[in-house]
């Protein structure tokens, strides 16, 4: 096992797949010569050359449209949308074209592509460069959605996404790019649609994603140590497909559910999971379902303000202490 940053795991995952399969190509803005604005794709141009690793104009619709057309006709493109907020300028291609083509054509068209994008807050970039928008994608039938929390998952899920015959949107959390972690040596391929139970407790199940996984783990430690509340922590990893089996089992066992989301309040994946539990696991519940989210506001930019909006370890501890006992 080598220790890699989350950032380097991106390049490692892409490189592994490009080396394996000639059909894999990579395109985006400033991704080739500059190696990406987050330096997550440094070295790919040198390794695979300008025919396969391509810089694009600021034309997100063209980028994703081209990726789609190429995917329909035999390539397996990986396209980068620099910040996930920018999905809004090419949302039609994602939500109306890529996601729907297989269904509309009754299975004639296949769109095996991967869209990678940098998601989330923490860099003081303000409301147009800090959003967590995985819920935008989860809402749309026909596109798979993953959001890794650890370097190993980054590499493994990128590989799984490239090999999948459906379009996959990968949300890389900006605030995690410098996180280090063990990544298996050699070929590493994960599986889409599997949540992971990172610790098991008996009082409550915390379901989290990306950065929030780390905060949930830290909060669970404090809750256990200082307050005698023992929590399961589940890293959802994949929103579509959603591993409801794992989530339902843990909630049934602990009797309580807390979701921790970085996205704004309304209609996030936390609400979806909460409503599934409130339907299918109702009789096992020992108390209200708690959703911890960023407030339903655009994100402020100043460090003091930004830090106070995204769910913190302290806030997770506090809300669980107050509401679960």
């Amino acid at each position: 096992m080598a220790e890699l940053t989350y950032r380097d795991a991106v390049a490692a995952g892409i490189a592994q797949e490009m080396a394996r399969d000639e059909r894999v190509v990579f395109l985006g803005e400033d991704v080739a010569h500059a190696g990406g604005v987050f330096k997550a794709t440094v070295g790919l141009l040198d390794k695979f050359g300008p025919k396969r690793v391509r810089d694009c104009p600021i034309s997100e619709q063209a980028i994703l449209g081209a990726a789609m057309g190429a995917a329909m006709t035999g390539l397996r493109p990986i396209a980068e949308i620099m910040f996930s907020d920018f999905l809004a300028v090419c949302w039609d291609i994602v939500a109306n074209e890529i996601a729907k083509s297989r269904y509309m054509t009754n299975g004639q068209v296949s769109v095996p592509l991967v869209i990678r994008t940098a998601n989330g807050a923490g860099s003081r970039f303000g409301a147009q460069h800090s959003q967590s928008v995985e819920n935008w994608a989860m809402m749309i039938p026909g596109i798979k959605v993953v959001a890794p929390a650890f370097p190993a998952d980054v590499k493994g899920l990128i590989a799984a996404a490239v090999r999948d015959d459906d379009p996959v949107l990968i949300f890389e959390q900006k605030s995690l790019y410098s996180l280090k972690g063990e990544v298996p040596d050699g070929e590493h391929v994960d599986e889409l649609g599997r949540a992971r139970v990172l610790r098991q407790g008996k009082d409550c199940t915390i379901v989290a994603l990306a950065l929030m996984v780390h905060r949930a783990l830290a909060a669970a430690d404090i809750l256990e140590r200082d307050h005698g509340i023992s929590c399961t922590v589940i890293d959802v990893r994949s929103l579509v497909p959603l591993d409801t089996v794992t989530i339902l089992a843990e909630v049934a066992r602990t009797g309580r559910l807390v979701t921790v989301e970085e996205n704004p309040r309304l209609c996030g994946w936390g609400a979806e999971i909460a409503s599934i539990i409130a339907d299918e696991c109702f009789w096992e519940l020992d108390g209200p379902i708690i959703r911890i989210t960023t407030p339903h506001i655009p994100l402020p930019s100043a460090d003091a303000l930004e830090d106070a909006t995204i769910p913190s370890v302290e806030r997770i501890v506090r809300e669980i202490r107050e509401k679960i006992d």
Partner: protein
Amino acid sequence: MDTKVKNKKDAVAKEDIGRDIRLELFRLQLELRLCEKRAYDLFLQNLIKGTSHLSLGQEAIAAAFGVAMRPDDWTFCTYRGHAHTLARGASMSGVLGELMGRECGLLGGKGGSMHLTDVAKGAMGSYAIIGAHLPVAAGAAWSAQYRGTEQVAVCFFGDGTTNIGAFHEALNFSVVWKLPVIFVCENNLYMEYTPISSVTAVEHPAADRAGAYNLEKIVVDGNDADAVYRTATKYMDRARKGGGPALIECMTYRHSGHSRADPAKYRPEGELEKWLERDPIKIYRERLLGLGIVEATLTDIENEVMQQVNEATETAKASAPPSLDGIHQHVWADGGAAWRN
């Protein structure tokens, strides 16, 4: 054989476009025309339930490209795509069946009139949101270029489409990457009900923008199948050889309203009549006769096509409504619709 006819046959032979191709252009235009007319009849009989956007009057463009394209080339078109799909060889019963929401439809009733697709024939889809398919076509062209297959992607769209952002992005992108894609604007003078001239800064919505992408300005008579055929061949050949994209504006006119809901009252008086005189099929029939092709040859084709349309209609009518199982099929590559385990 009397010499007059022989001379005329020579005349046909000496033309840059040979007799067989000419007859196929005629036949195909006719097929598109009669099939669209049939679609209109079926709508009046309430057998077609959703919307439909007919290409009546615009057949020369779809037919000319259909004949000029290689079987492995790719077509990307719009909701007004019945003709373009048929022109690649999709079955008429598959098209009419889809319009009627039947099992035999090209998409098993899942897509409908606005999304006709026949991947096996290179008809890579009909796209119903303005502009989106231009970059998609560029992407197909990229894959051809990448694999060195000399395939070409041809992308059809209307005059109104030139004002949306995706048009601009796709054009620039394709030129910078030198992709083998041909963008074909069918300028029929209107978006839905609004004259294109009232919402566009230039006279030729596509051709007058070619320069913005370092492309040649090309305007063709879209009601003249030969003119379109020649242009199509020229620029597709160039694209195959690595010469990059072209943007071709074909001037034409739709004889009916924008969609089945539209009586087209917004047209100035006499405009339709003027264009009916330039009906592409009428023009082409006269030209063939002028070139010495005998009436009977054309009549035979006409009868044959009409019979095919009739048969296709019966096939489609006889087809069952799609099974409800289809609802939960083909969201994903595994054939299903499950978003959870």
